[in-house]
């Protein structure tokens, strides 16, 4: 019996890292968006840029996910 521990380990590692990174990014984005509404001027612009950068990264991850399903 050959158990593919390497594959199991990488599934574990990848799932953990990607999930935490994505959820972290998305939360940052959501929080920045609410900050944007409460602050003015330069702060708001910075918060909005940060938020959209976070969401763009998440969208890229979803696109990669779709690519993995299709391929």
């Amino acid at each position, binding site marked *: 019996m050959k158990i593919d521990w390497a594959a199991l380990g990488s599934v574990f590692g990848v799932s953990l890292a990607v999930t935490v990174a994505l959820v*972290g990014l998305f939360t940052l984005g959501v929080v920045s968006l609410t900050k944007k509404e409460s602050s003015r001027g330069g702060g708001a612009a910075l918060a909005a840029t940060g938020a959209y950068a976070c969401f763009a990264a998440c969208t890229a991850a979803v696109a990669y996910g779709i690519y993995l399903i299709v391929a």
Partner: protein
Amino acid sequence: MEHITLLLGIVIVTALVFDFTNGFHDTANAMATTISTGALRPKMAVAMSAALNLLGAFLSVEVAKTISGGIINEKGIRVEVIFAALVGAILWNLLTWLLGLPSSSSHALFGGLIGAAVSSAGWSAVNGSTIVTKVLIPAVAAPIVAGLASMLATRLSYAIGSRAENKATAKGYRAGSIASAGLVSLAHGTNDAQKTMGIITLALVTGGVIAPGSNPPTWVIVSAGLAIALGTYLGGWRIIRTLGKGLTDLAPQQGFAAQTSAATAILASSHIGFSLSTTQVCSGAVLGAGLGRKGGVVRWSTATRMLAAWIMTLPAAGLVGAGAELLTKQGTWGTAATGVLLIAGAGVIWSLSRRKPITVDNVNDVETEPVGVVTAAIAAVTPPPAGQLVTADTATDAAADLKATIPAPDAGPSAEPTRPATV
């Protein structure tokens, strides 16, 4: 298509029925958290999941070469064996649906195949070590992988977002969880509709209708996609309620963390090649999200019932599959009797389900099952953070009442509230 015998026709229809049960059994995986956190209305959620399942069925060009992934020896397999396996898998799927328990449809199919193959050709037909590596170890690993990822993600999300207003962020998390749920649905369509296509193709090859090694005909792809989409659309509301409300109470950001961890774990596992059951990944993710929030309440009694269902899946579906195979061996009348028994069994389960129907209208109602003692004790010692869900607060109140009458540590399992007997 002209040489399809009656038996082959029955097998094809049964395979599509299995595909259908697979669809409504697994709607919960993608949509339970989305529905319970209010990200999508129930009807909308199942419609979206159905559409993505259908799309997924057409997306992948890779044909499921073996239906069992090497667990049983598929060479020279009789059509009756496939039929018997499907009977076992369908009945187990329906029974777990009646009990509202998420269990892996693939494991039910594997169980049915193993039982039918053993009863047909003896233990040598089954590859024991493959069962361990492809079924048992993934079954243990899936909830741990997804649960841990979802727990840490929930913690992180609460840590980062603690200062933001709940109302303002909920909308964002809901949108995020819809995207993750969409990915799960799409992946489910590609994987699970393929399985049915593989079964029908194998049956067609066995029956000599199409040449060995050929791709599934278009009508097979279309009908498998439609069957799984229809099943998904009708929605296994019982299982959705268990996963979305029964296991733990989810806030939007927990739902988002759970769904994202499930989508990631499913895609990572199918891409890296250590395939994990979608059902077990999703259940683990919901559990992890429940554990990740301070003061989160996980109903361990529900989790235990789910665990029991997972352990039972393989042997139970296997026993039914073996019995069905013995019956089909008796000849045409045996096969007919198996078919009648399948329909009768499905009918009984359906009529039992009507006694206490769970539909689109009451899917989000709070579970009547009382909070378990362990859960109550955990909730009592962990103070809920301010501004949490109302449901969490009521649960803690109930816990406080409980604690006043029963000293939780000494109570032990005997104080576990009596659950309604199965069926």
